[in-house]
């Protein structure tokens, strides 16, 4: 399937994960050419049937990734797709960030896992914001535009209760290395608009679970945070450096602490109004 600028080919030793992915990714195009291949393989021939265990492989892979039980096949595929992009993608500067847009102007929300960026993006998508992605912001080094990469959102543990009505979901995966996980497909309109980039207008570094606080960031601090948030900044060489310095120079950046989702959404929208 194709997500934004990237086509994936997923192969599996079992039928079930493919069927689950097919349903979760129902609204995405099925291109003939795929940029990256992901394989869900049995760790050994007998583990195809007895306590089936999935190893993620593909064009790019990590030698020490631990296998997952077959019931978590969708998670394995999602991890495989993330891995291909994180290790292979060089056409865009990648930032660990969720992205939402109003019209053709976008907010990048960058943070470590658990900072709440996925939840914020999903909540904003219910309030008229276009969802561009919750995993990677893809910045075109030539134009500075953020290209949508609207993969399904993976919600974990306490945020599972926030899944909006009417959103397409994958199976509930219990007992994964990240706890309980469920994938939620973005609204069909967000998928339909996934070839329309947006210009970054605001950069937020959110942190969930802290008393509300807002602070501006010095350019040097922003730059350091962005280099840490990027998986391919070094690998892109000079083009990566140029994309990052332009982003830092042109887009205001703030650090936002928020105690809960409602407060977070309200703070983001207030920042947007004040731009």
């Amino acid at each position, binding site marked *: 399937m194709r997500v934004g600028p990237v*086509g994936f080919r997923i192969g599996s030793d079992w039928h079930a994960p493919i069927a689950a992915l097919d349903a979760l990714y129902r609204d995405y195009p099925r291109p003939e*050419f795929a940029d990256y*291949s992901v394989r869900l393989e049995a760790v050994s021939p007998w583990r195809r049937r007895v306590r089936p265990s999935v190893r993620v492989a593909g064009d790019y892979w990590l030698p020490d990734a631990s296998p997952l039980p077959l019931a978590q096949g969708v998670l394995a595929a999602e991890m495989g797709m993330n891995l291909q992009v994180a290790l292979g993608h060089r056409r865009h500067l990648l930032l660990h960030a969720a992205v939402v847009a109003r019209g053709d102007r976008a907010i990048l929300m960058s943070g470590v896992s658990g900072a709440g960026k996925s939840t914020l993006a999903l909540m904003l998508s219910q309030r008229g914001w276009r969802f561009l992605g919750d995993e990677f912001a893809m910045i075109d080094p030539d134009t500075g535009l953020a290209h949508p990469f609207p993969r399904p959102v993976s919600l974990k543990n306490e945020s599972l209760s926030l899944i909006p009505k009417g959103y397409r979901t994958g199976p509930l995966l219990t007992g994964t290395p990240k706890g309980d996980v469920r994938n939620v497909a973005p609204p069909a309109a967000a998928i339909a608009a996934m070839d329309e980039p947006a210009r970054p207008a605001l950069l937020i570094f959110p942190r969930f679970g802290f008393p509300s606080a807002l602070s501006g960031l010095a350019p040097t601090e922003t730059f350091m945070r962005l280099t840490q948030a990027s998986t391919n900044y070094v690998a892109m*060489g000079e083009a990566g450096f140029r994309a990052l310095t332009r982003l830092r120079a042109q887009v205001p950046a703030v650090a936002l602490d928020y105690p809960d989702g409602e407060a977070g959404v309200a703070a983001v929208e207030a920042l947007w109004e004040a731009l």
Partner: protein
Amino acid sequence: MSAVRTLVALLRDPERAGAIDPAHWTEVLAVARAETLAGTLAYRLAGLALPGGVVGALAEARIDAAEARRTALWEANRVALALRPLEHPVILLKGTAFVAAGLAAGQGRGIGDCDILLPRPLLDHAEKLLVDAGWEWMKSDPYDDLYYRQWMHELPPLVHGERGRMVDVHHTILPLTARPTPDAQALIDDAEVLDGGLAVLCHTDMIVHAAAHLLADGELAGGLRNLWDIHALIEEKGMVGLEARAAHHGLSSAVDRALRLTHALYGTTVPARWQRLTMIDRLYRCRMMARDGWGRERYKALRTVSYIRSHLIRMPLPMLIRHLWIKWRKAKAASGSG
């Protein structure tokens, strides 16, 4: 046609790219990445009219190759700086040498470790200088360390503490346990000096080394890339003096086979006597092309034979038995305690 055959055909004749359908491109790209030939393919196909998605993926491979080149040259620069007290040029090998010398073989090539060659009497001093300059021994056990120092053609690998890049310091191009004994002194004496305290092997030695690496010292995994090195070296600078040089190093049979294979696969310009494959050559070719359309290795039996062969050619049988026995006992002890 299988994807790996298509890959070889495209490297040989880029004009065929127009006839490939998008779904097959997905397979070709997966195989090219598995063989670390994606960058080479991208350079070969530059400028041709291809489907949009394929152009993007190949552009990506070129970005990767440019970065590999930059990183390799910088690492060579750092190694040369650290080894300046030796007052001997650092002779670069393989990929780093190709890009440092500006050769076609380096275009688009993936480059991993920094492989260098130095006279054996300088190795102890070189190791000390590298460690002083921030390179570290990888965690290894006393048997591996001793094995390297006694029998291998290189120091135990050193990794730079900050950059994470590995340097392999060789004193010759084959393990001491292998039957052929290349003339290390000749390799060093005839090396061509570059700027910055660096040098590269002379043209014929580069080909001999590539053939030795491909056929006398490995499992043939990644063989298509190593064979492409040989093809590109010959196409750029010919093969005058190669036969005599191979004979001098005791590597005639490896070089002969490499020439037959590179002609058969890539259409390299070689005299008639290297234009026919033997039965055994065909097995090698089969082994080198053993990948399916997902980039996975196929033909497990052939791979196992190739693995056993790779050990047999590296050391005499009694030594191999002792080596594998020690390795097996250690693996067993490790799994028992883990």
